[in-house]
């Protein structure tokens, strides 16, 4: 019996067993993480929408050099495509896509689709028919827009997200990206500053007290982010617990503005993310024998000197791991700024959700998500280079 098992194991080899054990997780990750991620990255440059609504136009403009008005065949293709699109009630899709180039074109496509005769057999000269429907067809602008939108790939969404598309409000998403990183960095800094003494206390007390404190630290972690954010709203709002207590004690006369601004977002983010900073710090402090500090002191180092030259360098991996964890988690927070922030404190995830669910501009949403992802990866790489991979601790 045992030899039978041994023989079988030899037949498969230890590698085969290992692969078979890892395969479910690998497949799961592939299906639920890498495929959607790839889809999102692709969506940010995908531009085949116009081709599905106006296939003739896309084909007719393929050879156009853009110098002058396109040939008569292109006018006919646009005319026929728009009549067909109107019959199928999909002209709005083309109008929306061209509206991303300039909002004037959205109106132009819709009004032209309505103005054209439904019976294409009656039309002899498409060029004059189109120009009669709207003079803009006699100018290069709309043709350039059509040519830009003909796909199959576009840089439009990425350009819009990076503020390179022009227009007075083009810097919106660059500012939001900077704000996202600023909020995440502030939250990380506050978390680390608060976590240092907390972790140090945890590492120095007895096992029983440490367990109790650890439970207090972990309990909030097991509560939903939504509940915790809403609780902060209740505590910090104008007539909330915090303001009432301060006013009752006579410390302040008028309620402090603590929510619907940056303060509220940072307070809640810090609270939510604090355990992620404390745990790695605690682990690295726990591994440090306290006799080292005693040795440093007995050899003549002052308390500050001992802390900065002996203690701090050895817990850098813990600080790095905690900081990185908090920072990357903070970048993706959506519900906390939504509940506790003002319009000027919303982070990139808010605008991704807005473009996905409300503006229905999925290309732009995907571009914003891609940029957040890429920016994060670049920052991570820079950080690893600066600190050294073995000291990052993750």
């Amino acid at each position: 019996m045992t030899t039978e098992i041994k023989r079988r194991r030899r037949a498969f080899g230890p590698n085969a067993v290992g692969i078979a054990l890892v395969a479910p997780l690998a497949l799961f990750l592939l299906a639920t993480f890498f495929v959607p991620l790839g889809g999102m990255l692709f969506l940010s440059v995908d531009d085949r929408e116009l081709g599905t609504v106006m296939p003739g136009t896309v084909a007719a403009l393929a050879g156009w050099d853009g110098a002058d008005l396109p040939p008569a065949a292109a006018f006919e293709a646009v005319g026929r495509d728009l009549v067909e699109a109107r019959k199928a009630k999909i002209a709005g899709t083309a109008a929306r896509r061209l509206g991303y180039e300039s909002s004037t074109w959205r109106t132009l496509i819709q009004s032209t689709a309505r103005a054209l005769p439904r019976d294409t057999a009656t039309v002899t000269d498409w060029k004059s028919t189109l120009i009669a429907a709207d003079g803009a067809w006699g100018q290069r602008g709309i043709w350039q827009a059509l040519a830009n939108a003909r796909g199959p790939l576009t840089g439009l969404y990425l350009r819009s997200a990076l503020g390179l598309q022009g227009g007075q409000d083009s810097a919106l998403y660059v500012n939001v990206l900077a704000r996202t990183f600023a909020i995440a960095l502030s939250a990380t800094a506050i978390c680390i500053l608060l976590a240092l003494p907390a972790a140090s206390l945890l590492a120095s007390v007895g096992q029983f007290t440490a367990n109790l404190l650890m439970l207090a630290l972990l309990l909030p972690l097991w509560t939903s982010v939504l509940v915790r954010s809403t609780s902060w709203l209740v505590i910090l709002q104008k007539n909330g617990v915090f303001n009432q207590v301060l006013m009752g004690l006579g410390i302040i006369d008028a309620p402090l503005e603590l929510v619907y601004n940056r303060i509220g977002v940072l307070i809640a983010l810090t609270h939510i993310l604090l355990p992620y900073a404390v745990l790695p710090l605690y682990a690295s402090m726990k591994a440090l024998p306290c006799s080292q500090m005693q040795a440093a002191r007995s050899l003549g180092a002052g308390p500050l000197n001992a802390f900065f030259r002996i203690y701090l360098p050895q817990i850098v991996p813990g600080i790095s791991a905690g900081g990185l964890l908090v920072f990357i988690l903070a970048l993706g927070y959506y519900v906390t700024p939504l509940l506790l922030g003002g319009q000027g404190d919303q982070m990139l995830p808010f605008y991704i959700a807005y473009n996905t669910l409300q503006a229905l501009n999925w290309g732009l949403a995907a571009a914003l998500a891609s940029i957040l992802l890429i920016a994060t990866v670049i920052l991570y790489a820079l950080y690893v280079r600066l600190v050294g991979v073995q000291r990052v601790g993750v």
Partner: protein
Amino acid sequence: MADGVAPADVYKTLATKEGVDRAFKKLDEIKPNIVWWSSGNQPMQLLGSGEVAMTTSYNGRIRGANAENKRDFKIMWAGNILNIDSWVILKGSPNKDNAVKLLEYLGRTDRQVEWPAKLGYGVGSVAAQAALPADVAATLPTAPEHIAAGITVDANFWVQNIDALNERFAAWAAK
């Protein structure tokens, strides 16, 4: 409307660049005092907790807060915005005939008059509005005097302008 544009001219004004500039200028004035809300239960919370002194809201929520949470919120109808929801039958729906029958049933005046007592929102037909008891009718956005005091959402205007205005609004709000 807050800047003195007559309800009937709101969309005419907003269709011009000057009109949009004027609207944003008015928004600039009140921006420091605005708390934004995104879901329908928030305005009642903000008002109830004293966070804000006045708010925009769906009228049914105000009725709900007054009835269920014993609030005493009042509505100012001047400058109200009337929006009409629609039923949709999807193309190729397997139950199209039944769906049409349902819509016919829901559209009957004797069915329509039951809505306000249950939901607090307006009714979909003039006949139903007229058939309601006077005290109920006067609380609805579809009361003729309330319609006259505000505007009805112009879907065509928004189809044409929503992307450009949304973009500008998002940039303005984020500043």
